[in-house]
């Protein structure tokens, strides 16, 4: 069994890199946090997987993730295409999800798109939302990042963002949704603690996302983006109600995502 090598990309304004590294390393991966400035010259191809962590890359100027999305597309365009084609996994968390959407890597219905096919718009509440949410696992097996979860499984994680309302262009909403479903690209939807979909209701759906979408993958299942932060729900003591339990559990639900990734890389 090999030790997977994971690149955690950062630029000015990235800020969830350390805890993301701690999570994957705890599972036996060997990760490196690398500034985009140091990732030129084919270096990306020496890694088995890429994670774009949360934060405010370039201050979220223009739109969250827009500047880094463009930078990634221009600076790493060839390597990135190859990376995706070789089905090396890419995970985007929060700001990373925004970057993947802005750079056309998600939803990427028919391969990497030259322009964004969706966007993560300003929250319906018009403010930053830091809270815990329930997610229902929707994927039928394509997404390699949720292989440790059952379809329909409900998990608990925290979100923290001001721009997380996943939307498609209005006129293509239905068509794109059908594609997501058909291609098995839907991964997580917001639901309440009993597992019933939020149906847009705040704060169960914390941002007003279309169809309660919290995370999607590409049509290969190897590129995955989500607004919630699995690295903030890795240890049991990170839970918001662990003090009310008989004993704090060792791990929390977010671990399942990193576990799925590392297991995929190991085999």
């Amino acid at each position: 069994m090999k030790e997977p090598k994971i690149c955690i990309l950062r630029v000015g304004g990235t800020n969830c890199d350390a805890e993301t590294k701690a999570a994957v390393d705890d599972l036996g991966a060997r990760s490196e946090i690398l500034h985009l400035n140091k990732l030129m010259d084919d270096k990306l191809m020496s890694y088995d997987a890429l994670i774009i962590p949360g934060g405010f890359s370039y201050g979220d100027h223009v739109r969250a993730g827009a500047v880094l999305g463009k930078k990634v597309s221009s600076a790493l365009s060839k390597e990135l295409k190859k990376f995706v084609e070789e089905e090396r996994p890419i995970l985007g968390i929060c700001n990373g999800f925004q970057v993947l959407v802005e750079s056309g890597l998600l939803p990427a219905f028919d391969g990497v798109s030259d322009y964004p096919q969706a966007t993560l718009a300003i929250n319906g509440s018009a403010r930053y939302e830091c809270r815990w949410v329930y997610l229902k696992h929707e994927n039928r097996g394509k997404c390699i990042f949720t292989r440790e979860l059952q379809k329909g499984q409900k998990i608990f994680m925290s979100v923290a963002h001001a721009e997380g309302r996943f939307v498609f262009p209005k006129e293509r909403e239905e068509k794109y949704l059908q594609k997501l479903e058909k291609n098995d690209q839907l991964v997580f939807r917001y639901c309440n603690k009993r597992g019933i979909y939020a149906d847009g209701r705040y704060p169960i759906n914390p941002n007003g996302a279309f169809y309660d979408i919290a995370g999607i993958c590409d049509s290969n299942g190897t590129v995955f983006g989500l607004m919630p932060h699995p690295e903030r729900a890795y240890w049991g003591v990170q839970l918001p109600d662990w003090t009310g339990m008989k004993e704090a559990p060792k791990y929390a639900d977010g671990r399942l995502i990193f576990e799925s990734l590392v297991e995929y890389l190991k085999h």
Partner: protein
Amino acid sequence: MSFLYKRKELPFEVFEVKLLGAGKEQLLQISQKLALALNIEEMRACKQYFSKKGRNPTDIELQTIGQTWSEHCYHKTFKGEILVGKRKVRLFKDFISRVTKELSPPWCISVFEDNAGIVDFGDGYAIAAKVETHNHPSAIEPFGGAATGVGGVIRDILGVWAKPIANIDVLGFGPLDYKYKALPAGVKHPKYIFRGVVAGIGSYGNNMGIPTVSGGIYFDESYVGNPVVYCGCVGLLPIGEYVKETKPGDIAVLAGGRTGRDGIHGVTFASAELTEESEEISRPAVQIADPIEEEKLRRAILQIRDEGLASGITDLGGGGLSCAAGEVANRSNCSIQIELEKAPLKYPNMLPWEIWISESQERMFLTVPGKNIQRVLEIFDDEDVEAAAVGRFTQGNTVKVVYHGHEVLNLDIDFLFGPPMVRRTIKRKGPKLTEPRLSQTSNLTEVLLKLLAAPNIASRESVVRTYDHEVQGNTILKPLHGKHGGPNDAAILKPLQDSWRGVVISCGMNPSYGRIDPYWMATSSVEEAIRNNVAVGGRRIALLDNFTWGNPEKMEQLSALVEACKACYESARAFGTPFISGKDSLYNESPLGPVTPTLLVTAIGIIPDIRRAISVDIKEPSDAIYIVGRTYPELGGSEYYRLFGEVGRSVPKLHAAKAKKVLSSITKAIDAGYVRACHDLSEGGLAVAAAEMVLSSDYGAELDLRKVPASMNGMVRDDFILFSESNSRFLVEVARGKEKKFEKLVKSDFALIGEVSETDGFFVRGLKGRKIIDTSSRKLREAWRGGLDHKS
């Protein structure tokens, strides 16, 4: 005025100021015209100094003195001498730092000397903590003022080589429903200030990826014209990497954002009262925030620290480069020569004095041995941060500034850091207050629900959720905790991957008591901060003091300040908790008058194993609920009185010896595993504390007031026992079967007053055995959650 100045024959604009020939009127004119905010004694000291030198000063030299000697930078009131009766006291030396000196605990690593206080954490790490005020900028420009306040205190933490791990923000505003018509010209509405400040704090902390984990919001009439914005930051550093050894030959590096005209005269602005014209005159004093710049700066600085490349560091805050360079030179017994044209600027044509004192944000000052300079500049470059070598340290005792080859400033450090001592006299005079005669209302349930929705008690959820309090993944006791987001007494962080040790952060502030008695206000704040820390399992507590006060040149303000400082000494000494850092913000006055004396005490504790942390929510039906601590008829300044528009006089006092016993018994009970939930009694007293424990959970509770240990002095009334805000009290949920052990441990001043119930009912039996409160946890929750949202 031109007869006072003469332009020097240089290729750029520097003036010679004709100080030597100036009389009293002219000296004051110069101080005013150059916005130096120096008084006549200080101007005379300058004149005397330059007379000895045999020359007139340049404008840049006088600006430097103005900055360095300002209340904001030098804290002349705290360092000065005050005549109290026949006794001479110095607030800082005789009260605040005296606690630490007398206790001198071995775990205090650096106190009061550096940008932040530093205490041992264990496992080779130290905790750094600092709290700052940014009141005046926030009054003028709420978003920018608050954001730069956060940015500034984060740099204080970087300025001791620590990684920022948590932000703390304690705020004070006027009532949100204040009448627009009642606002004097130039004063912005509390709602506008509130929204801007909250957004500014969230924006900076969120963007930098530092969780905002603790704080408070207080509403008081006296904050209408002058809001209170305390910004705090806590950091973590490996003890061995705390380096302060600047030597002659080292190079001065200025790194971060470019220098601009934003933030000129910020410190002198902070050291004067707010007036109708403040907006127009002082708008340039508010800096512009760019958190991403500081995020990059943080990366570079921590890298430089880990590689051990620099010999010293400080942040650029009040007074900009002039204060940073001078302070480092002073601290390391060196001379410094700065080549001012090397500082990267936002735009050309800035005047030398502007570059020198600008308070533009996101800048740090490092001292680097020559052999490491290339690597240091490379690290900054890798992070896309601009950095420049702007000067060099040499042997000696002077500050020199050269601009394009011409010397424009040459001052002796002894003079610069030895301003004339402020001497003041006070006479004590307390306000004339009376106790209101309230008849007890029959509907105490309604009173409780109203109190839960009161601005100073209601849920802060609508604010807290806009702050990222989870980033870095270490916040294990959150500001909103449990199934229903209850209000924990303190936040806990677990900053090290391989250790269960935690940092416990809590606050105490009681502005309402400040209206009655500054001494008891201060003791209450000290005890409340400690009490909150202890309630979640914190111990080995260090304190930070932050004063927001009115003009100290006014007798009643100064005498209140002396009282509060004395209280700080006496209470902190009694608890054995040293002060490690502090800051005073004086001159908090507007056309509406001074702010109520406001002392914020921040407590930094540790918990050896975070798995023992205690949260506020009750947890198990049939568990026993105890009250620990004695209740007195102390409703002066209480939220109960405020509900009826009263202030009163019977402010909560501190019985230090008893309090100490109560606190240590709580810690022991937590460590022994008897405690399932714990909450301190503060605003709203016993009733509100019990309600908060219930509304945070799925369960209910039944309580009985008849057993509450109380010394009511003939004032035995249900409402007084329910709502008195006496200090040193806790409500504790004790696990079933552990009652006897718990009682044996606590010994005195406790009572079993009820139990957790399976249903969500909340009942209280009064002194006559009748149900006086009858409601449900759902109703309590609704009232508490609705309070602030309706008004904001």
